[in-house]
């Protein structure tokens, strides 16, 4: 078998094929996990927000309503696909695809536990920024190509919001990069583990707060969800979408939320590790697999998303832009200056 492959495809090709098969299996595992998480993120959002509003969430479909996401998916699949007559068809078809693909591709560089990444690249964090910027393309294209006032305004507002808060998000993560010394996400988690306090959220407190606020704005979630505010703009940039195209936008939004939660879990909360001072005190915790800690942190951050949605009113558009440019960017810059100064002092260069 080995010899046949080597005569056809060149020396060493058996290892290449095994590697390719390993990557394909990882992709299948990650994709299944990610899609199930996205589907159940919608279910848990409805249940959690219902509990906070003194009512019950979905209960009829399946036990405790657990099959609700599948019922929603099937319903959206069978709905009529309505396209405005004057809409720009190729772009109209393309934009939900761009949005969803940009969100899902980010799952390729996230390390879920030690050694398990689909693509272990040295610029993991930069790749995540790039993908969230590409999602903004999907939004602008969808707003512009649906020939409708609401979609147009929603698309413009959302695009400007996303690009403003991207800057704040990127700058807040620069502090993490300085402390870890690398853009590779696995290296960042390992650097956190070696740090005495175990997580970067404590020394990078300012960066963490800026990142959380920017993450809410990036994913168009309350309190920054004016682009898709139902009472203001019908549905903002995805007004004219129906059926499965709408489902793609909807799933893309929840995928973006999961990606942001994962980034904060990896960069600020320690990823799959727990701080050493805790394992020294309770050594049995070392037997728990790393993915459990990672998922707990991601779920905690998702709960924060739902919790804030149930609590806060939304910001007006000019207040929103004011916060992004006038408050978050200066704070992130101050954070970078302080982090760099402290690091240089520790390294003896100051």
């Amino acid at each position, binding site marked *: 078998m080995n010899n046949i492959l080597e005569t056809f495809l060149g020396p060493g090709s058996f290892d290449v094929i095994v590697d390719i098969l390993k990557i394909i299996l990882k992709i299948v595992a990650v994709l299944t996990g990610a899609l199930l998480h996205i589907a159940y993120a919608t279910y848990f959002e409805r249940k959690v927000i219902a*509990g*906070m509003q*003194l*009512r019950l969430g979905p209960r009829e479909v399946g036990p405790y309503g657990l099959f609700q996401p599948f019922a929603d998916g099937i319903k959206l699949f069978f709905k009529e696909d309505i396209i405005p007559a004057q809409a720009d068809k190729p772009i109209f078809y393309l934009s939900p695809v761009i949005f969803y693909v940009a969100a899902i591709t980010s799952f390729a560089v996230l390390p879920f536990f030690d050694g398990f990444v689909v693509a272990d690249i040295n610029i993991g964090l930069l790749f995540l920024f790039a993908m969230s910027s590409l999602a903004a393309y999907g939004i602008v294209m969808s707003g512009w190509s649906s020939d409708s006032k609401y979609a147009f305004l929603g698309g413009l507002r959302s695009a400007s919001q996303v690009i403003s808060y991207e800057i704040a998000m990127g700058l807040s993560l620069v502090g993490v990069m300085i402390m870890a010394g690398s853009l590779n996400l696995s290296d960042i988690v390992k650097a956190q583990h070696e740090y005495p306090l175990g997580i970067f959220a404590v020394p990078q407190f300012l960066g963490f707060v800026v990142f959380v606020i920017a993450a809410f704005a990036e994913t168009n979630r309350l309190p920054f969800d004016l682009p898709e505010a139902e009472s203001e703009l019908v549905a903002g940039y995805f007004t004219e979408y129906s059926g499965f195209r709408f489902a793609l936008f909807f799933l893309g939004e929840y995928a973006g939320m999961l990606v942001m939660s994962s980034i904060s879990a990896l960069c600020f909360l320690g990823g799959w590790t727990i701080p050493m001072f805790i394992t020294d005190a309770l050594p049995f915790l070392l037997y728990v697999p790393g993915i459990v800690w990672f998922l707990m942190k991601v779920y905690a951050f998702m709960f924060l998303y739902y919790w804030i949605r*149930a*609590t*806060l009113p939304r910001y007006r558009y000019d207040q929103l832009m004011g916060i992004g440019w006038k408050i978050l960017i200066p704070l992130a810059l101050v954070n970078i200056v302080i982090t760099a100064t402290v690091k240089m002092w520790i390294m003896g260069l100051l």
Partner: protein
Amino acid sequence: MITNKLFKTISFIEIIKGLGVTLRTLLFSPPVTRRYPVKVRVLSKPGFRGLHALAKDEEGKMKCVGCGLCGAYCPSQCIHIYTTEGEDNSKIVERYEIDTARCIYCGFCVEACPFGAITLSEHYEYSTYSKADLYMTKEKLLENWGKYFPGDKGRQYFRDFWHPLSEDFHGHEGQAMFSKIKMKGKE
């Protein structure tokens, strides 16, 4: 004042207090949703205006004489009455129909009827899949009387809520009155 406001903005203290309220609601307050088809709310207010019924007197005959006052008074014009002449020139009600889809359940017809013939029962769970089932004919309405006003309930309806005007008619000696009603103090 300025430092107080600045402190509140920086520390997010008001947002955190709001988050605390929401979390407390999630963890400690039970939901107030009533699971309707399983747990039906018992009507706490008697006299609720629901499905229509044509009243029958003690002998089982219909009280309605076909005067048409209910149809004339109805704001939605949902009562349709057709009468013919029977033997010995009496008026018989041939068709009496109420379109319950148009009805606004105001009770003006009950108020207008001098004989207490049309009533509104307390029944409200009669949704169907076809609009034809909502168009009540005389037979269905007479049936409803037996179903939703059993026994003393009918008498209680007229005693407590809608006293028929005809029971208070009394004229002086020799005055011509409706032939079908019983008068107070006269026989």
